[in-house]
């Protein structure tokens, strides 16, 4: 197990390094200079390049770059908000994105589990059909379509929730974005839970538990769900990543000042330092989540632990 965890950690760090290299190379290839101002003459430009270390040899730049990135010094924004350190830009925006994403994950997981359990217990009944229809629609329809529909009906027509995000009404204005983001997670978890639960419910130890006289919630929650939950952890990681992608669009629709909308603005205004910093943050979060889930999975399920231990 330790060997397996160590191997995963090393691989993750290596992946992060590869990403940094790719980001760095891309930054060199990126068309356009951050100093597009026509008023600048050659000398002023040279001064600016020197100030930001852009006149150094490529290798030196890269080493410096890796060091800076890992210590959280992402440099300054070139054009969005001039000379503001990017870490400062991100510091105010990241918590907003994470809290909305977190709400979406919690909401999606809880509702998804409930739908999945309903589908498995009343297998092939009306309740199952309804749960299946909801989850198929949730998987198939992109989150921003939900976002548009929700913001039109509940924000614009019914005025139950604010259409746009405001810091004053923190909770009520994050309801719609979280709900629209959570749809995909909810639907995937519901489908996965249903098939896992069906498999567990048909297993021998469930038959044993039942013949020992257990029934009702003890049977479902204590014996079935606990075993069905293990594989569900593995799908959570890719789902969280899908949330990151979805958040870009949802943040644009609801005008949320998070890192998703920052990335969109940065792309559109060619502020490549910000784009690359955010790409690094997204990658780091992604790799971190994958690593945690993989190791957690090994800790929870002894079968995986043993199987992977033998292989490595």
């Amino acid at each position: 197990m330790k060997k397996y965890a160590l191997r995963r950690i090393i691989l993750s760090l290596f992946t992060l390094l590869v990403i940094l290299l790719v980001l760095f190379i891309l930054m060199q290839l990126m068309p356009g200079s951050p100093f597009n101002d026509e008023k600048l003459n050659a000398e002023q430009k040279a001064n600016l390049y020197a100030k930001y270390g852009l006149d150094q040899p490529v290798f030196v730049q890269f080493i410096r770059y890796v060091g800076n990135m890992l210590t959280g010094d992402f440099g300054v924004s070139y054009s969005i908000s001039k000379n503001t350190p990017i870490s400062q830009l991100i510091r105010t925006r990241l918590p907003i994105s994470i809290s909305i994403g977190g709400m979406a994950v919690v909401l999606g997981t809880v509702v998804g589990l409930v739908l999945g359990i309903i589908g498995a217990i009343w297998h092939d009944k009306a309740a199952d059909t309804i749960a299946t229809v909801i989850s198929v629609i949730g998987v198939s329809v992109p989150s921003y379509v939900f976002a548009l529909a929700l913001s039109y009906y509940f924000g614009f027509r019914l005025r139950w929730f604010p259409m746009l995000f405001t810091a004053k009404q923190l909770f009520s204005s994050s309801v719609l974005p979280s709900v629209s983001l959570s749809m995909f997670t909810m639907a995937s978890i519901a489908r996965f839970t249903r098939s896992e639960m069906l498999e567990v419910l048909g297993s021998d130890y469930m038959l044993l538990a039942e013949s020992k006289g257990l029934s009702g919630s003890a049977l479902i929650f204590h014996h079935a769900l606990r075993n069905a939950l293990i594989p569900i952890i593995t799908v959570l990681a890719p789902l969280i990543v899908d949330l990151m992608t979805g958040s870009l669009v949802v943040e644009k629709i609801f005008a949320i000042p998070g890192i998703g909308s920052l990335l969109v603005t940065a792309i559109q205004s060619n502020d490549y330092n910000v784009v690359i910093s955010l790409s690094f943050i997204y990658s780091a979060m992604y790799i971190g989540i994958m690593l945690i889930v993989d190791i957690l999975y090994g800790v929870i399920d002894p079968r995986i632990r043993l199987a992977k231990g033998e292989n490595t």
Partner: protein
Amino acid sequence: MKEPVQTESQKTGGMVFYPDDFKLKNSGNEIHIDSNFAAQSFWKEARIRFCRKKSAVFGLVMVILITVFAIFGPGMTSYTYSGQNLLRKNLAPRIPVLEKTGLFDGDETITTTTGSKKINYYKLKKLGNVYYWFGSDTFGRDIWTRTWSGAQVSLIIAVAAALIDMVIGVSYGLISGYFGGKVDSIMQRFLEVANGIPRLVVVTLLLLVLNPGILTIIFALMLTEWIGMSRITRAEMLKLKEQEFVLASRTLGAGSFFIIFREVLPNIIGPVITQVMFSIPTAIFTEAFLSFVGLGIPVPQCSLGSLISEGFNSFTTHPYQIVPPVVVMALLMLSFNLVADGLREALDPKLKEM
């Protein structure tokens, strides 16, 4: 004189038999063919299983319908997808026969903060004989034409990306699984690293470097979507390569690549097709997402994503502008998912009920 038939008993010095000695019994219509349990070909059985699932058939019909409209829809009106007419902007949907029923008659309800009122711009602007089936957008372009040509672009991108991913993913997975050992180890480490880079990051960075357009989006999808496919084919290869037919083929002198692509590949075609069908909606979604963020198809060309993005700008005042592309895209993704689900069950009879 006919040659005697060689039999065991002849060798042992027993009786001699001639072909005439034997006659087929029950050779006529007496032979009973068991039609109930007759062996069916794999594809026929798969077709039957697929058709038994109503949702899958519904999905298939919708996919075909949308494809037909995507091909012929833009030609059904006199408008072009890029033709602008600022005198006829923001007209609500109006369809010749249906307008008499009160639906699609060009009326639109404008809702503002002070209340709502019903307006018919066709009457106000005296456009008696003008029909925009899905309405017109802020530049006076016909939304019907644009929706279907957008669907066309989205479908082309999705299918092309899915097919390219299939070729790359299948080859990668099969080769990695077949050779095993060091080759597999290196290829899997590479895959793990590639998989560690979020798709969002790859796609955004790529679109910054290259010019936005259909080819760039296909290329971006190609770089990210092959991983899932290669995982599936590798797993199948690991299962199949120990089987007797592979051993037999190798004993008969078949080379590695013959075994991989001619012996094993036909046997895993089911999971591969299923995965392709699942990757099409992903590709449609990614394209729509990119266009929505502003990294997609350049104007005046349009895709479903860019239409949604345009409609979003005025979706509280003219909601009918965003409805057609949203509905078409949602239906398209839903249908492809349903078809893929049906195919997965049809092509893999061992699969337990999901």
